[in-house]
């Protein structure tokens, strides 16, 4: 084991006391470093131009069995810097290093910045909802137009009834048509990866439909195409059952137009055409709200479904145009 007293301690003692060589040897013995061959002062070191202390430590190191350099030149300690000069041999203790190390390090202080404040209860992350895709001020009107079923339960059409009477035809009760939401709606939301960017929009639209239509909203999810299965959760497994006529079917889907390049559970055009046929002719055509321009929707699908673009540019007129096809 190496002693806990180093030669540097002897050097410090020597520099502080400036004793004669015998005293230095005695101090070395007291520190457990004896025998020390010689500790001597040099008058001036040409290297730094000032007084220097030099120690011949070769004998001491050899005595302790330590490695020493082949050419054990004297340790030259600069009184100006207090550290061994370049050219000093190996195995020398780190005498005076501490003082010199302080000088450059002490000036290096980190900026007096305040630590980043800790996260508190007020800093809980809040995720905002996106702005709705339909204009908020038009939303109720658009949904009423989209989901309302035309029935002849409006006010009497007096003009047409008078016309019938004037022509001598049998008088029947004629009423103005009107749209009603009383049949409710079956809302089918696509959970395929292609609809991921609009997941929050789907949830918002669902709330909006419930607000407009009321209690008669049946919401189910599907992946790709409802014919693959529907259900309330993220893994729809139930066989799809169309609602009784004339309840409308609202599809919220990308019709397989978007999504990742691979593995997106996309449904192709034939699959969608089969689904449209499944609904039967006794009801109005299914409505599809699609977050893509109509120009991207294949013509065959536009012929089989009423497709409305889910965007700010959608107006009551564009909805009526879509439904009139």
């Amino acid at each position, binding site marked *: 084991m190496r002693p806990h007293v180093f030669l540097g301690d002897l050097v410090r003692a020597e520099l502080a006391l400036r004793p004669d060589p015998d005293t230095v040897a005695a101090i070395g013995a007291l520190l457990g470093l004896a025998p020390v061959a010689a500790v001597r002062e040099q008058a001036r070191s040409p290297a730094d131009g000032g007084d220097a202390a030099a120690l011949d430590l070769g004998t001491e190191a050899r005595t302790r069995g330590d490695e020493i350099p082949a050419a054990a030149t004297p340790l030259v300690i600069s009184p100006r810097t207090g550290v061994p000069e370049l050219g000093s041999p190996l195995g*020398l203790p780190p005498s005076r290093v501490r003082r010199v190390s302080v*000088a450059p*390090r002490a000036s290096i202080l980190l900026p007096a910045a305040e*630590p980043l404040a800790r*996260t508190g209860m007020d800093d809980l992350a809040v995720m905002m909802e996106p702005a709705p895709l339909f204009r908020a001020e038009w939303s109720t009107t658009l949904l009423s137009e989209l989901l309302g079923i035309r029935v002849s339960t409006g006010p009497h059409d007096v003009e047409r009834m008078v016309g019938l009477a004037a022509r001598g035809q049998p008088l029947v009760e004629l009423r103005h048509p009107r749209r009603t939401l009383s049949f409710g709606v079956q809302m089918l939301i696509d959970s395929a990866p292609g609809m991921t960017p609009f997941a929050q929009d789907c949830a918002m639209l669902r709330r909006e439909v419930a607000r407009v239509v009321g209690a008669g909203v049946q919401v189910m999810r599907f992946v790709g195409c409802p014919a693959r299965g529907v259900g309330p959760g993220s893994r729809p497994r139930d066989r799809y059952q169309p609602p009784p006529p004339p309840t409308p079917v609202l599809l919220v889907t990308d019709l397989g137009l978007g999504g990742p390049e691979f593995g997106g559970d996309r449904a192709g055009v034939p699959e969608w055409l089969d689904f449209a046929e499944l609904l039967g002719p006794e009801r109005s055509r299914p409505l599809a709200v699609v977050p*893509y321009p109509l120009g991207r929707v294949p013509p065959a699908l536009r012929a089989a479904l009423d497709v409305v673009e889910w965007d700010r540019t959608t107006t009551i007129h564009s909805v009526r145009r879509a439904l009139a096809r």
Partner: protein
Amino acid sequence: MNNVGIGDRAGQVPELAQVTPDALRLAELVSIAVRVEPALLRAIRLGLCPGLPTAAEADLWFSGLTDARSRSGFALAPGARAVLQQRLAGDRQNLEQAWRITRTVHAGAPRLMRIEEELVWLALSGASDEALAAPLDAIIAALRLEPDRSRGLSQWVVRALPRLPARLRRLDQFWLLAFAASVRLGGQRIMTGTPPASALRGALPLLIPENAPRIAVSARLLSGMLDLTEPPAAGTDAFEVPATDPIVLEVLPHPTAAQGRQVLLERGGRTVVDAPADEIYLRTISGEIFEVTAGEQGAASYRVLSYRIQQSDFRDERLPLLAPPPRTFIAEDLWLPDPPAWAAER
């Protein structure tokens, strides 16, 4: 300078411009954001380019420019994001508006995410180095003074630093954080590239924890050459340095030299540098200084002249002397492009 483990997709930007320019436009405008949620994407589209259809959002979402897609959002791929940020920086008006919207939408986002986005904004808008350094100084102070937060902050550093604008790499604080976090995470690699010579010399020792993991490195001082190896080469002497990747050492002619030559040693690698002296000193990033001498017949020896610094207080932590036995240097085990003349003569 590339990020570790992340492919540079900058080359995909021109391709996307040909296919979906709407998505590219949107991508530029959201490039300040660390994470792009549907709310931000929508706010940027409706606020800055209302003529773009909803489909532009989906086109960007599923484009090759995005990484880490989830139901809650996506991140732009770092390489592409850097290119998009450069394009956005060229349009001052849109840059300012995009930042305004991003800051508003992300007002409730995690604090570190907001700091990262602020750094991006400051860098792109040409803010001063002092303004850029201020948020980093706050994080450095937290790392230094609040050890219970250091792991979480270090993990943020790992994620955030590689994706910050290149301009930040000129700051000393940037590299201080990189190495301080690396050593706290067991030497995990955070950045590639070479830090400015001044970056690690000063305050980094104050940021290295006392219990930082260490790894052994060997050094051999040969005729005019210093050979550094990690892990230590067989038959050589080793000394321990804070475990970072890369390992950073400073070669000093003199133990009190304020400035030396910075040497980066890759983990599992080897570096040979010029060292025209019979003895040199190596300073680690924790401030320890090792003396390396050629020794007898070319063998190297080390002696620790270590003085560790904690906070701004100095403590003399004299470490035991490492005294390896002298050995004979075998020229064949050192690869050098041009063997020194003395080796050829042997």
